[in-house]
């Protein structure tokens, strides 16, 4: 069955490539593929409120990966949408083949890039300079923790005090040991996303050097980040509950762990998973410099039928002002610089998170963030290293061998 499907999709490949219509109706009905969980429906409603003449056919295709897969199949020969969201991890593969998309500079002028965070636009810019997508949001990094559990364990609970107490990852582990000693419970949900994904995004160079060479196995910054995760595991303060596994949501509700990583787009998930803990959570900065996890861009395929209508949507909804409004209604962090420094974002708080300075933490995190080059296999390399840590937590790999296992995973993946 798999063989058949693969060949069928491949069989239709390499068609199209014709020029998009030069002029068209900006209010034509256009198709828009988004993934679930990003509030696309709200965004479309906001657009229709601003532009009552417009007509949008929204499809929430599935998870980010499923959406990218569907887009690939569509670009390979199927019917493409006029507008599509692409998540950061999936982006490099599309940016590598920019002919599949309209260079947005041709629609919006050369100064398009100035509006958004440099590295966010950089990730969506092909080597030939073509801008494949406009950043819709970024994943400013914070840590969410349970203030009530911290207090019970005799730890500071005020966000500023906590941030000061775990200013380095060593401090973080030490705090975890104090917490676990006092309560007998794990401190952090897991080491692979909460620790490794945070630390490995605080580097100046990640899996690729700035000139595009793969250096994940020789880059000491990556090895150090990995080592922090292994140390956290060795300290015995991890609940070993993988993100999105069956125990994760209940764990947030019943205090199986007190800390979890919180890129801006994860916060709403804590609210839905643990409504009874309202007011108990706080959000503060991660140890060390800021970081980013996630974020998306919005793009127009080259074979789109109504690129003008799609561009109208981008122009309206990706403006700094509209991204700020969308942040206030759904919590997705803007990628537009002006929005990130706006009063509305910086002063944003949420009662669920005990009125922690959410907006300030998230905004600082992405503004302080070091840009690094992400190559086509960035997500495969990340997954290989991450899986070694999960395997370690499952007891299948010894902590001392985890790094070698991770490197081997990546070597297998890159072939």
């Amino acid at each position: 069955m798999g063989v058949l499907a693969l060949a069928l999709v491949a069989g239709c490949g390499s068609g199209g490539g014709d020029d998009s219509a030069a002029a068209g109706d900006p209010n034509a009905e256009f198709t828009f593929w988004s993934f679930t969980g990003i509030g696309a429906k709200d965004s479309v409603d906001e657009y229709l409120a601003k532009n009552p003449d417009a007509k949008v056919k929204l499809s929430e295709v599935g998870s980010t990966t499923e959406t990218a897969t569907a887009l690939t199949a569509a670009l390979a020969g199927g019917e493409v949408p006029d507008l599509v969201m692409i998540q950061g991890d999936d982006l490099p593969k599309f940016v590598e083949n920019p002919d599949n998309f309209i260079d947005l500079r041709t629609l919006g002028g050369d100064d398009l890039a100035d509006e958004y965070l440099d590295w966010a636009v950089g990730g969506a810019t092909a080597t030939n300079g073509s801008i494949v997508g406009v950043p819709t949001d970024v994943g400013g990094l914070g840590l969410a923790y349970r203030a009530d559990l911290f207090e019970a364990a005799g730890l500071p609970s005020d966000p500023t005090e906590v941030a000061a107490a775990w200013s380095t990852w060593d401090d973080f582990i030490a705090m975890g040991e104090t917490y676990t000693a006092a309560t007998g419970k794990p401190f952090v949900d897991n080491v692979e996303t909460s620790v490794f994904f945070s630390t490995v995004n605080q580097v100046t160079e990640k899996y690729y050097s700035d000139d595009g060479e793969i250096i994940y196995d020789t880059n000491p910054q990556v090895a150090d980040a990995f080592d922090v995760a292994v140390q956290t595991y060795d300290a015995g303060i991890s609940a070993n509950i993988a993100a999105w596994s069956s125990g994760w949501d209940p764990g947030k509700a019943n205090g199986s762990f007190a800390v979890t990583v919180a890129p801006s787009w994860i916060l709403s998930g804590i609210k839905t998973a643990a409504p009874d803990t309202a007011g108990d959570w706080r959000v503060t900065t991660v140890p060390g410099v800021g970081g980013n996890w996630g974020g998306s861009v919005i793009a127009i395929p080259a074979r789109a039928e109504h690129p003008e209508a799609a561009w109208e949507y981008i122009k309206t909804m990706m403006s700094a002002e509209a991204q700020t409004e969308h942040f206030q209604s759904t919590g997705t962090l803007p990628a537009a610089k002006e929005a990130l420094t706006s009063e509305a974002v910086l002063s944003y708080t949420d009662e669920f998170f005990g009125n922690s300075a959410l907006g300030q933490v998230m905004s600082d995190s992405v503004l302080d963030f070091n840009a690094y080059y992400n190559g086509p296999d960035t997500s495969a390399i990340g997954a290989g290293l991450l899986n070694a840590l999960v395997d370690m937590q499952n007891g299948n790999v010894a902590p001392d061998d985890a790094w070698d296992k991770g490197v081997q995973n990546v070597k297998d993946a890159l072939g």
Partner: protein
Amino acid sequence: MRGNRQQKSQRPTKVKSSLPERIAPYAYVAPFFIIFGIFGLFPLVFTFYVALFDWNPIGAHTFIGLANFERLVQDSRFWNALVNTFGIFIISTVPQLILALGLAQLLNHARLRWANFFRMSMMLPYITSVAATALVFGQIFDYNFGLINWVLGLVNIDPINFLASRVGSWFEISAMVMWRWFGYNTLLYLAGLQAIPREMYEAASVDGANGWQQFWRLTIPSLRPVIIFTVVMSTIGGLQIFTEPLLVSPESGLTCGAGRQCQTLALFLYEQGFGQFDFGYGSAIGVALFVIVVVAALINFFLTTRTRGAN
């Protein structure tokens, strides 16, 4: 055959059939061959073709000869998936067919009340969607909140993280496969059993054969064609298993666990083709899977055919 012979006997009288009459038989069988050509043969041949390329669905297609196959042989993930596929296949199929045979014997019992109800209920697992099955089994085997670990907890046994270990995840997937297919095979065996004339058993009883002897000397040889069919079909289906391992741990994606502990060949194919967008390599896996299935089905066919020799 009879019609054929009659036609031959008519030939000397030189009654010519008209053109439409001669074409008609071919027209009747044509739809199968056309559909097979489009959906069976073409994808098969095309897969062999794509396997010779570094084929990016949205980018370049570069001819690289047999490089994909060379890479496949050296890829530890391929051998890992192969072991998983056969492991899951064996521990799901062998007990399943034995169970089905036993159940068919029970259902064939002359004095069974409500026989039709029980026979029909055998189809229930088969018509349930795999996704629903995976959801329910996921709950039963769950590490934190699963039924099995709850029961183990009652008798003070530490919870088992089924998905974290290789054998544990095989076991969970096999349970799903067994649950889905045992009823289907039971009904096939039952149909075979009902075709055996009762007189043969009566004659055997008169000759002094006991229950076991009747089962081994009479029932099994009579069921041989059905057994061959079920074994070959289970081999083809079992080696292509895809949905169960895909759904068993949604958060780990296409690898079925961080250590690829339950990634099957079909899932590995999908991961490379649609996860990594490497159609060439995915097709090479597809070709390998095709060869493996054909070889395994042939081996099982010959093994089961030889059961007559044993008797």
